[in-house]
Structures are given as structure tokens and as C-alpha cells.
């Protein structure tokens, strides 16, 4: 490695190229700056029917009302849908010319890391149905039922059921995943006649709340073959 006392490279008087580079980088920073602007994504009316979203809207309504801006949860929900639709359309319009570039290079910006933690997180359970009845093959976080665990926790498959976890109905990608699980079940458990992928909504209660966690309820069940 070169000596640590290497002189700092003092910028020369900016050349013509330095100015062109500054223009190009200014443009890049501007386009990515628009992309990275932490604007709320478009909220659809059906998303507000989710219990977590309902809770969230109700809490914001309480908070805004306590700050002197009186607004009910229903009205707040409608406003959120309207405002986020406008913001999202503008944002999409501004970045539309660059979409092909972002698509082909796979670059972009969007960093909502755990923006909205799920207060009713879903737990995946896969039941196998055989001639002798039903048995649990897999359950998240259950070492005794860990069939396909290395696959289902893999970062290229986990997001599929992670994304389905907040939906009321299974998504197309989730159904394809369950179809694939069935093909594996036919190899590993040839006695089965069906599998059922169950997403259970759990209800963790804060340790200092004095509440007992409610029993999980089934968010949706996908049976293969139907």
C-alpha cells in the first residue's frame, strides 16, 4: 500500500471537464433526489380496511384532534387516500422519463425500512392433509415443524409470504409459492392428498400492558389442490 503520508490531492483549478462533470452529477443528484423524496406511497381505500391501518388512522385522528385539528377517522382516511393519490401521481409523473433507465439498470431509491411495523404479525403454518387427517408440516418459529425451513426463510422466497401477511386474500405470487410447496410435498410426503397454507394473524401484547395476547386468528387459507 502506498505511504500514509501521500499528499492529499489538491483540486486543480477546475477544468472545463470539471464543470461538465458537476453539471452531470447535479442532474443525477436531482433525479435521484426526486426519487428518494420520502413521500407517502399511494394509499388505496381497501388498504384502510386492514385492522392495523384502521388502528393507525384512529390514533392519528386522536392525535390531530388533541392538537386542535378535529377530524374523525373516516374523514382522515378519505383525506389520506386523496392526498397520497395526488402526491403519488406527481411523483410518478416527474420520474416517468427515467423509468426505463431505472428498470434496465435496476437502480433507484426507496428506503421505507420498517416504516410501519406490523402490530398483528402473520405466522405461516403449512398443514398436510393425508388419509389419516391433518398434521402440521411447518410453522414459523417452531423448530419441531420446520419442513422446508431453509427455503421459506431464504430472502428470495420469504418476502412473498411476508408481503401476503398483511393482505386479506392471498396474492398471485403467494398462490404460486404454495403451488411450488405442494410439488415439494408430493416428493417429501407422498402420502398427502393436499396441503393448506394458513396465515395466522397474531396479537402480541406489550409486556407492561397487563393484557394477555389474544388467540391468533386465520387471515387466509390456501389449499392445494383446491
Amino acid at each position, binding site marked *: 500500500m502506498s505511504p500514509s503520508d*501521500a499528499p492529499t490531492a489538491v483540486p486543480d483549478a477546475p477544468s472545463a471537464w470539471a464543470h461538465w462533470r458537476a453539471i452531470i452529477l447535479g442532474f443525477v443528484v436531482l433525479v435521484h433526489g426526486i426519487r428518494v423524496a420520502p413521500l407517502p406511497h399511494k394509499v388505496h381505500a381497501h388498504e384502510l380496511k386492514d385492522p392495523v391501518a384502521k388502528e*393507525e388512522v384512529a390514533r392519528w385522528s386522536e392525535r390531530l384532534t388533541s392538537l386542535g385539528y378535529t377530524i374523525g377517522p373516516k374523514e382522515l382516511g378519505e383525506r389520506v387516500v386523496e392526498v397520497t393519490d395526488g402526491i403519488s401521481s406527481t411523483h410518478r409523473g416527474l420520474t416517468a422519463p427515467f423509468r426505463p433507465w431505472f428498470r434496465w439498470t435496476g*437502480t433507484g431509491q426507496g428506503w421505507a425500512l420498517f416504516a410501519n411495523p406490523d402490530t398483528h404479525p402473520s405466522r405461516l403454518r403449512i398443514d398436510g392433509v393425508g388419509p389419516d387427517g391433518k398434521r402440521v408440516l411447518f410453522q414459523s418459529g417452531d423448530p419441531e415443524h420446520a419442513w422446508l425451513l431453509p427455503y421459506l426463510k431464504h430472502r428470495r422466497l420469504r418476502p412473498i409470504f411476508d408481503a401476503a401477511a398483511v393482505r386479506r386474500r392471498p396474492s398471485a405470487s403467494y398462490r404460486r409459492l404454495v403451488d411450488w410447496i405442494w410439488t415439494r410435498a408430493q416428493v417429501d410426503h407422498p402420502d398427502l392428498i393436499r396441503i393448506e397454507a394458513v396465515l395466522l394473524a397474531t396479537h402480541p401484547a406489550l*409486556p407492561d400492558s397487563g393484557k394477555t395476547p389474544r388467540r391468533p386468528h386465520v387471515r387466509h387459507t390456501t389449499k392445494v389442490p383446491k
Partner: protein
Amino acid sequence: MRVWHRWVQVWNGQELPWPMALVRLLLGAAMLFDFLTFLPLGMVEVVMLPADQGGVLPSEWKVPPPWWDWFGATPASAWGLYIGLLASSFLVMIGCFTRTAVVVLMLLSAQFAWMHGAGDRGIDTMMRNVLMILAFSGAGRGLSVDAWWRTGSLWGDGAFVPSWPRRLLLLQLVAMYFAAGVSKYAQQWWPWGGYTALWFIWNDWPVSAVAGQAWVDTTAALRFSQFATFITILWELTFPAMLWMWWAWRRGRPAWVRRLRPDLVYVALGAIFHLGIAVWLQLGIFPWAMLALYPAFLSGREWARIADAIRSKNLRGVVEAVRIGP
């Protein structure tokens, strides 16, 4: 004119190649390891083929991935893409045909993202953003096979590279952490939600490595998670202060910025944050790929001094190397 002159100067100048060489090496290693995890599980055809070919991807597309247009959606094309990803990430890691390898890896990864959008996360986008920057950075000038070919030493000759790619990468990190902070609209991240976000994330079955464990349901765990949530949101929202700290360091005032190096406190908190994610959550490559970018927080001269101190087995010199500053 003065503002323009400053803007030009921000992107002007040169520096030693080590930080970006380290980023290249570590990011290449992280991506290579990530792709290698497909092999023992036989995941290549599962995540690179449509459902009618035995995978989990859609069979019907409005705009199909160009890779499938060119080579078909067959097992052979899936393996072709996979081997391309493996080979290019390996070449990026060792710095062989660096610029070409970096561009090929970015484009192939983008094809994979096109076909498997559900399995392509923010960290994948971040890695491609960084690959784009690396393509212009001279990251193959050191710690690389390219450097060995050119100079006869794997370390390279320490020839200067442009400083703007590292600065752009730092700006990307500032933007990412700040945007992540501002986007946290759920009550649980804020005082009125009791700073309970991390506790709920610990209980989130798909992503948590500790959900269901008894200790999570203790008051001590809750209190710790509240503290960690508070630190996280504070750290993310104030991350742009790094820009001021770097500027203040260059200017030499206020003097305490040079004396205390608060920017390194932020970097250390970031490292703890990502290590915590690695322990408590199952996010795959995310914490490691992010930590792979951290060498960019130190300048080439700082890395050169650190290397000198390590070579002379002077561990105190490592601290001194950083204390002196960029």
C-alpha cells in the same frame, strides 16, 4: 457563481483508491455469498423460472424480462443467468476486469430483479446503485488482480483516483438513512406510540429471528427495545448532520469536530445498528451488504495509515490513524 464554484469543487479532486477498493471487495464478496446460498438448496430454477417451468415466477407478463425474450424461460437460461451472476460477483470481489465485471453484475442483477420483483428488496437496489458508482470509481486500482497486472502488486501503486465517486456514495448513504427515518410514519416509532416499533418487529414472524422466544415478552426486553427504537429514529433523522461534520472538519471549525470526530460516532452507531439487525432479524444479506459500504466513511489516507499501523503491529496507531482524520 460562488455556489456553482463550490459545487464544482465538491466533485473535483483525487484521492487514494483504498476506500472504494475495499467497498468493491466486500460488496462483491457479499453478493457472491448471497448467490452461493442458492446452490445447496437447488433454488436457481425455483426463483428464476415461471410457474409452468417449475419456478415461482409469473408465466404471464405484460413486459417479460428481456433475458427470457433473448434466451427463453428455460432451465438452461436460468442457469446461464445464475452463472453470469456468480462469475461477475466473483470478478468484482477479486477486481479482475473490474469495470466490465461491475457493469455486467449490475445489468444481470437488474434482469433478475425484473423477473423476480417480489424477491428483490431495497438492499438489492442499493447494491446496484453502488455498482453503478463503482464503475466510475477506479475501484480496481488497488487490492485487485487488475492492480497486480498493472503494477506487479495486489495492493497497486496507490495512484490517485477521482474522489467524486466516494462522495456520491456517502451522499447516497446519507439520503438512504434520512429517508428511512422520515418514512417511519407509524406511531410505534414515536414517543406517542411508546417507542415500541422494535418490540413489534421482534414479534414479526416472517422477518424476526427471535419471535416467540420467552425473553422477548419481558419488561426488560421491552425497555431495551424502546431505547433502541429511540436511538434508531434519532440516528436516522439526524444523519444529514454528517454532511455538516465533514464540511466542518475541512474548514477546521468548530474545533471540537476535529477533536471528537462525531462523524465516527455516527458510523459506529450504524455498525451497531446493522449488527443488531444481523442478530435479531432474518434479512439475509442486508446488514452485511450495508456494512460492506462502510469503508467509504474513511478516506484513502486514513486507510493507508491504518494499513501502516497494522503492518507495524502498532494497534494504538490504528486509533491514531483515524484520529488524525481525512
